[in-house]
């Protein structure tokens, strides 16, 4: 699955670009992909010392409400809250996409993971063939039902933000880059070790079984 993350500011904020967020407070849900996507959007626009973030709840509805209450200058949200934010007049100053990665323990063998890959590959094909229909999942499978999300119609969603891709093996170079990047922010430590991160044999067998 490809996740879309948007860096949003309140409707009347005098912030129009990521650069405008230098030294401004940005709330992120540390520990989740959305937070790291937020850091990448910020650091692409300013020196690291100008990046000013604080931790906040992973529940997107809570981050959106706090943004609107003026608790911080910006935050990063995913769908359906990107659409909620746009309808509320918020400004998207940056958007990005990032992969969700499945983390399995050693009870998952190649045959089981291969079946999972084949099923989600077919699901990705079906979603991409009829995105407008499937955006209903954004309304039914969020953190919890909220009036803001329930008020959305399927036509409100920007389909270009729904990107679904069939699972593929993790490129080693990408995994190494991610490790090094997270280490540079102090989230991880030590040298990257592919054998402790990716079971190459299971991954290869699972993806070859199609």
């Amino acid at each position: 699955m490809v996740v879309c993350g948007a860096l949003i500011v309140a409707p009347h904020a005098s912030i129009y670009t990521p650069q405008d967020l230098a030294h401004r407070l940005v709330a992120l849900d540390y520990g989740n992909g959305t937070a790291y996507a937020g850091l990448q959007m910020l650091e692409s626009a300013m020196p690291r010392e100008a990046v000013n973030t604080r931790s906040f709840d992973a529940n997107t509805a809570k981050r959106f409400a706090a943004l609107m209450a003026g608790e911080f200058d910006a935050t990063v949200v995913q769908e359906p809250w990107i659409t909620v934010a746009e309808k509320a007049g918020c400004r998207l100053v940056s958007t990005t996409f990032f992969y969700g990665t499945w983390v399995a323990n050693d009870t998952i063998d190649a045959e089981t993971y291969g079946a999972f890959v084949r099923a989600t590959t077919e699901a990705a094909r079906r979603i991409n063939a009829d995105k407008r229909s499937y955006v209903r999942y954004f309304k039914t499978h969020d953190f919890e039902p909220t009036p803001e999300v329930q008020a959305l119609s399927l036509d409100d969603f920007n389909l270009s933000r729904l990107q679904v891709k069939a699972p593929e093996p993790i490129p080693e170079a990408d995994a190494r880059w991610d490790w090094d990047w997270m280490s540079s922010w102090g989230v991880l430590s030590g040298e990257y070790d592919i054998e402790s991160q990716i079971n190459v044999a299971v991954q290869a067998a699972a993806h070859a079984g199609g």
Partner: protein
Amino acid sequence: MLRTMVIEPVRAFNGMDVLVALDEDLFAAEGLEVQCASREPGDMRSTADGTLEQPVSAQGLLQKRGAASMYQA
């Protein structure tokens, strides 16, 4: 042989493909039963309590406890 896999719950923004595969019996067609593990009270610890270097996240918690074999990061 029907295989069973228990995963941590997903939401549409990060797991629409899984949700569709469940609803449209695509896992079953592959001989796979996928179950979403249930979270217990207290599992959804607030990320607000963490720091960048020491984040607090529910991701992986159920796998760590042995209640799920996969989660999405």
